[in-house]
């Protein structure tokens, strides 16, 4: 006889496959609401086949927790468990983070920078800096002004062409910018509030909900900008030397340990073809005007 405790609830596994830039992502889960959240983020993106080589495979499973047997959400990336979340509203941010983590781990053919990247008039623009400097908010605001979007978290640099490659995941916006996003008519995908660890509440924006053709093609990097958000300050854009630009980008490089010192010659070559600026950004409209005045 099979005891009830040995059985699991009946479930039907499903998966959704997306092509984000040049990277195939497959999300599997028996949880309809998780797949629904992901579908809202990537509605309109190209679909990829499930058995493509190099596909990043993520899974979300509901499992029983040890303490009080409360359910937890087990998140797996390419067969390796990367976390167990207690709260349902933590699942999507962790899943999105997990996709980034798998890209960092598996796409060493690119130099990966912790940066937002967009294209305007054919010129690639990288916004580099630590978390909280305003990369995603700037990216969202520029997207609303008609820029083409390449990504808000990872700028993938092809070492041969030095072009920045698209990896246009949904934009992740922290709660401090929710009011601004509403003013810019930027719609949040699906449920608005998710919880992303110490960053608190976040919302996601599907770029295809903002404009009809928001996704950019690979582009040469013409501008490297280091934003720093200071509330209420007058926006100021000031040139920095290429050496300072390369040094700043090196601090944002996520996989330089895999590429070694060659990472630095790639960055040096990249900034030789670009202008580098620091940006003190206060009110977003003024900051965007300054950036567009470079073109």
């Amino acid at each position: 006889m099979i005891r009830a405790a040995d059985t699991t609830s009946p479930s039907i596994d499903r998966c959704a496959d997306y092509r984000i830039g040049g990277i195939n992502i497959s999300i599997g889960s028996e949880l309809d609401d998780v797949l629904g959240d992901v579908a809202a983020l990537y509605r309109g993106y190209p679909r990829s086949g499930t058995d493509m080589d190099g596909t990043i495979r993520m899974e979300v499973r509901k499992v029983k927790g040890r303490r009080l047997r409360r359910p937890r959400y087990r998140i797996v990336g390419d067969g390796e468990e990367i976390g167990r979340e207690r709260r349902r509203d933590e699942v999507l941010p962790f899943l999105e983070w997990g996709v980034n983590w798998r890209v960092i781990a598996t796409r060493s053919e690119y130099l990966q920078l912790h940066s937002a990247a967009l294209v305007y008039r054919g010129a690639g623009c990288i916004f580099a800096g630590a978390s909280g400097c305003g990369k995603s908010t700037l990216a969202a605001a520029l997207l609303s002004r008609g820029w083409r979007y390449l990504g808000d978290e990872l700028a993938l640099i092809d070492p041969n062409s030095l072009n920045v490659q698209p990896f246009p995941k949904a934009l992740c916006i922290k709660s401090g910018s929710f009011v601004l996003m509403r003013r810019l008519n930027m719609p949040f995908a699906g449920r608005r509030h998710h919880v992303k660890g110490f960053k608190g509440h976040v919302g996601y924006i599907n770029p295809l909900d903002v404009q009809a053709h928001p996704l950019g093609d690979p582009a040469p990097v013409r501008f490297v900008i280091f934003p720093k958000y200071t509330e209420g300050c007058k926006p100021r854009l000031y040139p920095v030397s290429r050496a300072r630009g390369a040094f700043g980008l090196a601090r944002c490089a996520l996989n330089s340990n895999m590429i070694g010192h060659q990472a630095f010659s790639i960055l040096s070559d990249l900034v030789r073809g670009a202008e580098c600026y620091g940006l003190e950004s206060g009110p977003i409209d003024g900051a965007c005007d300054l950036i567009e005045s470079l073109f």
Partner: protein
Amino acid sequence: MDVMRGSQWTLRDAEIVTPRQCDDIVEERLDHEAILVDRRSGHIHRLNETAMGVWRSCDGQRTTRQIAKQMTDVYDVDFEDALDHVDQLVARFAELNLLEVGMDA
């Protein structure tokens, strides 16, 4: 010639100190500045124009005194100040293990 690295070395005499760049340092020159990548430690260093000028003169042949003299030819600085800057920079480079320092006794 004695060769020492980093904290083993202290400046004693500008006439005999001949600093030389370590082999494992990759230099990327960007306009008037330079970035040094230490392949052993993975550390990256940014040098401004004057620091780069001193760094590029550290060829194991020139003494710090000669490097300082060279600086006075390029910049509007008197020799004592230039020597002071060179001494400090060479000491800092050595502390960061970017230079080997020879002593011609």
